[in-house]
């Protein structure tokens, strides 16, 4: 399962970004193992339409799970339509810690 986490920086030591569409980075990690990868969100500072475009980025990478704080009204239906499960993370930990919590089944599913 490929997990995407919104993050303030390009590595798992960085804190989780609470906003989805304007997250500076999207980090990816497979639950089956392998390395972390990251994509800079080129629309983080765009004029508008950031939610759907961020969703397109996450979908194109083939994520199955998304971990973030808040997801906007435009991105939400896109992520849901793509069949990606959303888990909410509202603490101030790092992306790596959020991933660990997800693996341990400690995160709340967003519905």
């Amino acid at each position, binding site marked *: 399962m490929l997990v995407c986490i919104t993050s303030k920086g390009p590595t798992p030591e960085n804190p989780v970004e609470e906003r989805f569409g304007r997250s500076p980075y999207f980090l990816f990690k497979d639950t089956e193992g392998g390395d972390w990868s990251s994509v800079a969100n080129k*629309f983080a500072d765009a004029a*508008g*339409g950031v939610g759907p475009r961020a969703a*397109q980025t996450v979908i194109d990478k083939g994520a199955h799970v998304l971990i973030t704080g808040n997801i906007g009204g435009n991105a939400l239906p896109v992520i849901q*339509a793509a069949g990606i499960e959303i888990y909410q993370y509202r603490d101030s930990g790092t992306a790596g810690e959020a991933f660990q919590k997800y693996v341990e089944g400690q995160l709340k599913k967003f519905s």
Partner: protein
Amino acid sequence: MRLVIASGKGGTGKTLVAANLAASLAAEREIVLADCDVEEPNLHLFFPSEEETLPVMTDVPEFDNSRCTKCGKCGEFCQYGAIVVLKDRIMFFPEMCHGCGGCEIVCPEGAISLKKRPIGHVAFSAPRERIILVTGVMNEREVMSPHVIRETLAYTAGHPLIICDAPPGTACPLVETLEGADACVFVTEPTPFGLHDLKLAAGVAEVLGIPSGVVINRSMGDDEIIREFCQSRNLPVLMVIPFDREIAVAANSGDLVIEKIQGMKTRFIELFEKVRALPGVE
């Protein structure tokens, strides 16, 4: 002549001036009164009447699923993030679309065509003799106010005397209203807020080269800060409306002050004569 009543700062009395000026002049001539404050149109509150409406439309893409291969080119092209392409379907966000038609051009399959979507309407009424009121109204949650203003003004084109109530602010909606106008009256109040916003709005009229003058509203006698600025920019003060509870109550109730307060009508007619005498006004 198309005369715009503008202000920069909201709530200085634009609508009060536009409504009373139009009603004063209508004794002698035909007037089209255009409400270009399409986010919050208020002129109609002074002129309640039966309305006919026409929709304001914008272009949006329509996707032909039988042709679409989900290649993603349209989503990539869209500068506004209005199109997301999933494996099995397209998701489109009409309120983010600016109607540029780019997706139709880039689609290699010819699967996109443009159709119309309403974003507001223009209301027409004839509330009193010799006044036609044209009101632009943008739908709630829409953002393309300049487009609604453009369509509203298009219906007034060619009329000999058009008075426009402008939107507040100094950005694209004001530019859309001012562009091509023959004269502009800025309504301001003698406070640091009024002065600050008058400076900005007068800057827009200057850029567009539109002859302008100023009405000072809610004057308490001491209008030096406004007058100094007007003098420095060569903006004539065309009228001073005193700070008066009676005027405030009339305006708040949707009444015309020219019908409540003696002598006001003559003063609005004088205002119009002064506008006509502004240098550069035909």
